[in-house]
Each structure stands twice: as C-alpha cells, then as structure tokens.
C-alpha cells in the first residue's frame, strides 16, 4: 500500500471518529474495507487524486449530515408541544421587556413584571404541578426584575454627566438582556440540576426559542406600531459611528438577545421536561 493511500485511510479514520457513535459502531469497519478497495482501484486506474479528494470530501460532508439527521430525529422524538410553547413564551417575554416605553418608570416596571410573569408561566408549562409551578413563575419574575435593575441603572448612567462613548453605549445596551438571559438560565438551572444530553437540549431549545423570539418581535412591533419605533431613530440619525453603534445595539437587543435568552432557557426547559417524562415513564 502506498504512503498516500495510508494517509487518506488515516484521515478517513480520524473523520470516522467524529461520526455519531451509533453510526460508527455499525458502519465504520465496513466503510474502512470499502474505502481500501476503492483507493486500490484508483491506484490502478490513475484517478487517485480525484478519488482521494472525493472520498475525504464525502466523509466530511456525510459527517455533518449524520449529526444533523441525529439532531432532527432527537428533536422530533423528544420534543413535545409544551417545550415548544415554553420556549416561544420565553422568547416573547424577552421581547415584551424590550418594547419601547415612555420615560415613566412605572410603565417600564409594569412591562418587566408582565414579561416576568409570562416567562414564569412558560416555565411552568413544563411541569404543571402546584408548588413547583409557583416557583417557576417566581423564577421568571426574578430574572426579569434583574433585567429591570440593569435597565434602571442604564437610564441613570445615561442621565448623568458621564461621557457616553460608543463602547459604553453598547455595554449599557447589552447589559440588560444579558442579565435576563444569565439569571433566567441560572434560576432554571437551580430547579433542575440533572445534567444529561446538553447538546441535544441546547439545540432543542435553540430552534423553538429563536423562532419564538422572532415571532414575538414581529408581533410586538406590529402591536406597538413598528413604524413609530423606526421613525424615532430618524431625526437624530446623522450617519456617525456612534449612531450606527446605537442602532446596531437596538438590533442586537431586539432580535439577537431575545433569541439567545430563549435558547438558554429553552435548553433548560427541554432538559427539565426530559427528566420529568423519564420519571413518569419509569
């Protein structure tokens, strides 16, 4: 066997180790045998380089496809409607907290309370039992209250005489949704410390939560008059870097962070529900 063939076989073997375990256990031996014969044919036919490249490319492509198939199968098999609704609800809650409100702090507080209750209700959908349900509602409210605290601090900083640089603006804008996301994940994590199949659950949560957040964003802007919200940027927009940073920050907190927050929480929702269902199945 030539050195280049051994090299391709070694690279192929390394790629095989990255395949999902079930696939690897079933097919790895056979695939190795078939590849050896294919490469040996290619040595005699003179198409060795083309064959080698096709085989390695095919193995890499199939690796991705197999993982995607596995994830899709897991999601379809293990996700019930309450997980989806929980994730969508949390996404919507983050969006509600981002709705434009006037300067009166009461309106902001009311909005955050509403979002927190909505998030808590979403969490409670997973395991609708008495005390447990109440704890989850409280967890949702607490996460959003932490977000409100950062929101209030941000307003305070912006109102003071501190010079607002683009970086500071971005940091102030990102602080609030990050706080909500991290607090929500930590609180939900406290309710469920069982750590299994995290990858599946993150993906599980990601699909539902990002989708939910985007839908929520559309609903929220439609309800509040998206045109006014966009118009409010126009008069002061001068094309300077700081203006772009401000608009970019609003896009981030309006779209991306609700998705991330929902993702983290959705992952937890999936995990909690998986454990609950296992318990009941047992």
């Amino acid at each position, binding site marked *: 066997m030539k050195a280049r063939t051994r090299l391709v076989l070694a690279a192929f073997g390394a790629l095989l180790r990255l395949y999902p375990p079930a696939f690897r256990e*079933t097919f790895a031996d*056979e695939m190795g045998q*078939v590849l050896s014969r294919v490469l040996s044919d290619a040595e005699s036919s003179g198409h060795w380089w083309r064959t080698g490249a096709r085989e390695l490319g095919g193995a890499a492509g*199939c690796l991705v496809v197999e993982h995607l198939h596995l994830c899709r199968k897991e999601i379809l098999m293990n996700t019930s409607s309450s997980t989806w609704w929980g994730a969508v609800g949390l996404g919507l809650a983050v969006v509600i907290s981002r709705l434009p409100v006037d300067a009166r702090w009461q309106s902001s507080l009311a909005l955050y309370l509403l979002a927190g209750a909505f998030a808590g209700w979403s969490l409670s959908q997973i395991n609708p039992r008495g005390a447990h349900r109440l704890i989850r509602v409280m967890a949702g409210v607490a996460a959003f209250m932490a977000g409100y605290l950062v929101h209030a601090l941000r307003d305070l900083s912006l109102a003071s005489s501190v010079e607002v640089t683009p970086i500071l603006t971005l940091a102030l804008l990102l602080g609030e949704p990050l706080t909500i996301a991290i607090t929500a994940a930590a609180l939900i994590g406290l309710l469920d410390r069982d750590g299994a199949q995290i990858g599946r659950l993150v993906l599980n949560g990601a699909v539902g939560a990002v989708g939910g957040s985007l839908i929520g964003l559309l609903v929220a802007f439609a309800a509040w008059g998206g045109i006014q919200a966009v118009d409010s940027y126009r008069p002061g927009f001068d094309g300077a870097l700081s203006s772009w940073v401000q608009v970019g920050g609003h896009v981030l907190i309006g779209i991306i962070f609700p998705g991330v927050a929902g993702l983290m929480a959705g992952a937890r929702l999936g995990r909690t529900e998986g454990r609950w269902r296992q318990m009941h199945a047992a």
Partner: protein
Amino acid sequence: MPALAENELPLTEATYFILLSLADEPRHGYAILKDVEALSQARIVFSTGTLYGALKRLLDTGWIERLDDTALPGSEPGPGRPRKAYALTQLGRRVLAAEVARLRTLVKAARRRLIQEAT
C-alpha cells in the same frame, strides 16, 4: 399499489439507483457502489461516506435490511467478523415498483405529447 409506498415518491436519483441495485440480489457496500456507477452510466459516483449515509437512511425507513453474508447463498464463512450485505425488503420493493410506475407514466405522457407535435 399501497398508499404507503406512493407517499414516499418521488425518490432521489441516488435512492432509486441503490434500490434498483438491490432488486436482483443482496450486495455488499462495495458491490452497490460499483453497480450504481454502472447502472447510472457514471452519473452517480458515491463516495464511501455518502453511500453509507444513504444506506443508513434506507435501513431506518425499512426499505432495505442488513444481513450477514454467511446467510447469502454461495458464501463461505471467513475469519473475523462476518461481512454485511444489504437486501431489499418487501416495503422497499413496493416503493421501487411505485417509482418505476411513476416514471413510466411521465415518459408515456411526454411521448404522447412529442408524437402529437411531430404529426
């Protein structure tokens, strides 16, 4: 034709040729690879990875089954683990027949129209 088989149509070209390759007898992975290349006149050349990805999908759907080749007629047990061969199941055969019928209808319609235009 059972509705179950027709619901799976149309097949991808790769799936069609794999099923066709197994229509006459069970084959090993390498034999399928070569047979598909020949049947498709080299239009479909699988890499090992894509072939086994497709085989796995067909096993999952129950259109093909995996056999020890010691169970095949004319094979002799060798040293080590038995090699595996793939065979069409009844369901796979029905799906293939439904796809062939579908293709036949398409060709018939095209022929009718092209003959009409020529006359």
